């Protein structure tokens, strides 16, 4: 029987990691975090919590693995096609009026959503004047995102999503398949900048017309969500857009009264500056 990591032990561990490495997971949602930490603990066959704790405190490489495994890196291209359809029909025509478009994918994982957006921009004739920033806490997924290589096995599903999102081209024209891998076109990659960024501790690094952060905030407690919303608000131009995951909401956030939801989708527009 494998030992279970108790919540009290997890608190100790999180305090260790903050002190030792400056990564603050203390305001992450605990149920999900416990599951992820338990999974890693079991996978790496630690005999006790004490040994797990000791390894994390003394082995920076192992801490890197911890970050890679404990954060959730599940994503897909054009997930929720109706969301992307709204981007095409409602948001991109507004962005088109700007001389230069800056978009931030916060918590982009392996980058599938960044490539999805690049395809939309290309089809709207806007990619040439756009820059897409993709950031994530996990350096390993950022490396993958830069390469733009995804499993061929996913392409059928992505192609279906693409058609449902209003795509009219042949989805396979955007990548070159080689055995089981699909490499996306360099005309897309050329407009992307990937970097590590920790939403908990890092500052705003630019001003954007659109920020997408989908299925990231569900892993944060309300207190941390509030801080991240403030970071987004600070990083968003007036009349810019903030897009969240299909089960996330701005409703309970401190910035809610200055934002207006666009239709039924989880997209909000900043309608007033602070103060």
């Amino acid at each position, binding site marked *: 029987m494998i030992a279970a990591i108790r919540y009290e032990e997890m608190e100790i561990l999180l305090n260790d990691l903050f002190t030792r490495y400056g990564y603050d997971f203390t305001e992450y949602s605990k149920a999900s975090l416990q599951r992820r930490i338990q999974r890693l603990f079991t996978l790496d066959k630690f005999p006790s919590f004490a040994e797990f704790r000791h390894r994390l405190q003394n082995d920076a490489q192992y801490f890197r693995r911890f970050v890679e495994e404990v954060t*959730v890196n599940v994503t897909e291209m054009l997930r929720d096609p109706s969301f992307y359809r709204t981007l095409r029909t409602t948001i991109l025509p507004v962005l088109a009026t700007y001389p230069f478009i800056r978009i931030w994918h916060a918590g982009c994982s392996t980058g599938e959503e960044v490539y999805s957006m690049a395809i939309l921009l290309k089809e709207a004739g806007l990619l040439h004047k756009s820059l897409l920033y993709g950031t994530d806490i996990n350096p390993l997924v950022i490396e993958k995102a830069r390469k733009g290589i995804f499993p061929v096995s996913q392409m059928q599903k992505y192609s279906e999503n693409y058609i449902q999102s209003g795509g009219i081209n042949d989805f396979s024209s955007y990548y070159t398949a080689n055995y089981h891998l699909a490499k996306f076109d360099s005309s897309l990659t050329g407009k992307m900048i990937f970097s590590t960024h920790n939403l908990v501790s890092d500052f705003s690094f630019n001003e954007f017309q659109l920020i997408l952060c989908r*299925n990231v905030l*569900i892993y944060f407690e309300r207190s941390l969500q509030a801080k991240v919303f403030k970071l987004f608000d600070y990083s968003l131009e007036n009349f810019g857009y903030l897009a969240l995951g299909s089960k996330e909401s701005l409703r309970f956030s401190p910035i809610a009264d200055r934002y207006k939801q666009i239709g039924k989708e989880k997209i909000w527009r900043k309608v007033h500056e602070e103060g």
Partner: protein
Amino acid sequence: MRRAKLIIIGGSAGSLQVILGIIPAIGPSFPLPVLILVHRNVGFESNLEELFSSRTRASIKEVEEKEPILPGTIYIAPADYHVLIEEDQTFSLDYSERVNFSRPSIDVTFRCAADVYGKELVCVLLSGGNADGVEGLEYVKTKSGIAVVQDPATAEVPYMPQHAVNRVAVDFIVPAEEMPAFIKGLAYLPPA
């Protein structure tokens, strides 16, 4: 037996009819929260809320992240998310890897709820074609929760409940037609 604080009903293929039978037994004054967790990719209507609301006056809503779990409410797990339960008895959602090819996974929620509710948890596993939920039910028993399984003989797809019966020391095996009355009865158990 003691008063429960949360009922979770998990099902897959063939469970919709049973759930539709249970819903009218849960009225607005039902003193417990009920969470319904079904695999959606097996012929379920995506709008379960609508489907259920014509059958009861209890409040019915899809689980929202960070919301408190309240009595007299039927919660529905959203498609394509795992439902987790925090120590302070609020829901959270999780979009991590599928478990048993399923998201929501019944195992994930049973297990998480058992950590929080312990012996005050009732988990019910209905008809289904895979083994999701069985391991979770086993875990619920290690935390002294109550494990209920639909009688496989009355299940449209008996695989899931049969596995549970084979592997877990379940407390009750209930035929489909008696399930509504059984669930209703859980509300009126005396306190521990």
